[in-house]
């Protein structure tokens, strides 16, 4: 949609101001996008590395658990795991990455404090292995959650910012340029019309006095 404007000086100066604002906004958006992408790449690499590591370790823990399940009856497993010795303590807060709110998670329970939630008499060694492995992965899983959420938030934000940059660069600013050019042409045309009218009047006046 083309801009609606009246060919007046006032409109011209308004448009010029708006164009200036658009150009400044465009520059800032572009800087923001570049910085977002830079940070995103750091997070994405970390995310990939964490995910590989976590999945690998989690798979091992799961395999032990499957073995444990095979060795013990369902009821026994339920009984052993139903009441956790402690619940997990996570500190959640919100941090800002270029004014995008992203999660920050910290695990508050320390590794050494880990206790098995069951007695050893009715459970197999595989269950111990699985639970122990899982407790060790916990910090990794939490970091993965944080990094993965940050990555996806950044990706969304980058997409939005890029769209804004493009809208400013390829739509708004050219529109302003065109409108300003149009108004200038029209004003010049008026000016020329005025001049020729003056010349004509002067000529007629001169003829009358003769």
């Amino acid at each position, binding site marked *: 949609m083309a801009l609606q404007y009246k060919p007046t000086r006032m409109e011209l100066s308004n448009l010029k101001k708006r164009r200036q604002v658009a150009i400044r906004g465009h520059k800032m958006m572009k800087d923001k996008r570049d910085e*977002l992408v830079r940070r*995103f*790449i750091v997070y*994405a*690499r970390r*995310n*990939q590395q964490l*995910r*590989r590591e*976590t*999945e690998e370790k*989690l*798979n091992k*823990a*799961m395999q032990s*658990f*499957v073995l444990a*399940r095979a060795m013990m009856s369902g009821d026994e*497993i*339920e009984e*052993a*795991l*139903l009441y*956790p*010795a*402690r*619940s*997990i*303590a*996570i*500190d*959640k807060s*919100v941090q800002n990455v270029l004014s995008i*709110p*992203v*999660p920050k*998670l910290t695990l*508050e*329970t320390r590794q050494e404090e880990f206790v*098995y*939630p069951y007695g050893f008499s009715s459970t197999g060694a595989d269950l111990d292995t699985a*639970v122990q492995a*899982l*407790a060790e992965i*916990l910090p990794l*899983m*939490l970091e*993965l*959650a*944080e990094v*993965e*959420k940050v*990555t*996806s*938030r*950044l*990706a*969304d934000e*980058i*997409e939005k910012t890029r769209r804004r940059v493009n809208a400013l660069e390829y739509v708004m600013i050219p529109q302003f340029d065109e409108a300003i050019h149009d108004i200038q042409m029209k004003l010049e045309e008026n000016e020329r019309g005025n001049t020729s009218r003056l010349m004509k009047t002067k000529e007629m006046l001169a003829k009358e006095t003769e």
Partner: protein
Amino acid sequence: MANGKCAVIGDRDSILIFKAVGIEVYPESDGEHANFTMHKLGRAGYAVIYVTESMYPLCAEAIAEFAGEPYPAIIPIPDALGTQGIGLKALKENVEKAVGVDILSNS
């Protein structure tokens, strides 16, 4: 200050073990209920919701709803059957969305 809670949604056999380390466990077998539970947990202020990979595609609706908010983080994890690469695929999609090309796969 511990104000964050953590939950796992998935099939009972895979996720029961998470209970041993103090993560809350919500066994679900079909997508509709999983979606519902996820909504409920998200509203209740959970910080992280882990979902087994086989359940993850079924919860797309709830995942999309919370994508724009800092919490909860909904994270796919492998289940007892092993990993299907859904987590890495999601990461790949994010990278493609942000950068335009997948820059991670060949590094």
